[in-house]
């Protein structure tokens, strides 16, 4: 289970609204490579991960991604707090505004709603960890794309923190994949699926 802590993992203090950039950053809330997808990916994959240490890593990183989701929500919220109808129209925010006002809703920048098809839980540990490595790089690329567009240092600062975490998580997942492969048949990692073919005690001994 989870306990809430009444603070952000890294502070978000944005004093200048910018609904146009909020529409870009919201992709990391509910978009294809966003924090919600990241958290749900790892917290879903953990059940069928046969290595206890790697399952624990998925749980810990999935938990940190929830804290990142909260930071992105705070950024979007603070970028749109108190904007006027004139600012809505001038910034191209009207298509989001008409359905959500300034509520924070999980969607991609292009308006596509959050969807579980944005991630996999394949029940095969090599497949899942390889997806996780790609997911961290896709999120890092998205943050790079955001940083090319954002000029406000109050927005850049927490985005840079989140970008850096993608790199650290990628490193940890790389170590996890190596740990997993060390426990498999070195001549053929794909000889069997340890999550399925070996799910019963001693079935792969």
């Amino acid at each position, binding site marked *: 289970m989870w306990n*809430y802590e009444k603070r952000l993992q890294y*502070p978000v203090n944005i004093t200048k609204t910018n609904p146009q950039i909020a529409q870009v950053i919201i992709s990391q809330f509910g978009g294809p490579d966003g924090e919600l997808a990241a958290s749900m990916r790892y917290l879903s994959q953990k059940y069928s991960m046969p290595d206890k240490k790697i399952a624990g890593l998925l749980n810990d990183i999935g938990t*940190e991604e929830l804290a990142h989701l909260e930071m992105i*929500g705070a950024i979007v919220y603070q970028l749109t707090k108190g904007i006027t109808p004139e600012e809505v129209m001038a910034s191209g925010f009207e298509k989001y505004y008409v359905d959500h006002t300034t509520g924070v809703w999980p969607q991609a920048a292009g308006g596509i709603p959050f969807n579980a098809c944005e991630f996999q839980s394949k029940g095969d540990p090599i497949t899942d960890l390889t997806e996780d490595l790609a997911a961290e790089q896709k999120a890092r690329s998205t943050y790079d794309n955001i940083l090319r567009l954002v000029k406000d240092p109050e927005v850049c600062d927490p985005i840079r923190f989140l970008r850096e975490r993608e790199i650290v998580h990628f490193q940890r997942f790389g170590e996890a994949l190596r*740990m997993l492969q060390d426990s498999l048949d070195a001549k053929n990692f794909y000889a069997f699926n340890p999550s399925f073919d070996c799910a019963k005690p001693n079935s792969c001994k």
Partner: protein
Amino acid sequence: MTANSRYKSKAALLHWINMVSFAADDAALYLDTHPQDQEALAYFANYSGLRRQAMEDFAEAFYPLTRDASQNSRQQWDWGAGPLPWEGGC
């Protein structure tokens, strides 16, 4: 930052909590894949201890950051006290 400067203000103590918590969180992920690294274990223990103390100090002086840190001796439910993290200043 030294231990003494933690108590300068609410903002400074919260900043300290963010720093030591991050150090402990990051070390925890490393330890997930390197569970026998003695240097990392000592690093985690140090920052985890600093964090525990700072969380207690913060609840005592200001408001609880976790429900477990709620001060039961007070006359009213204090879990709702303090600003919401997404409003800034946290």
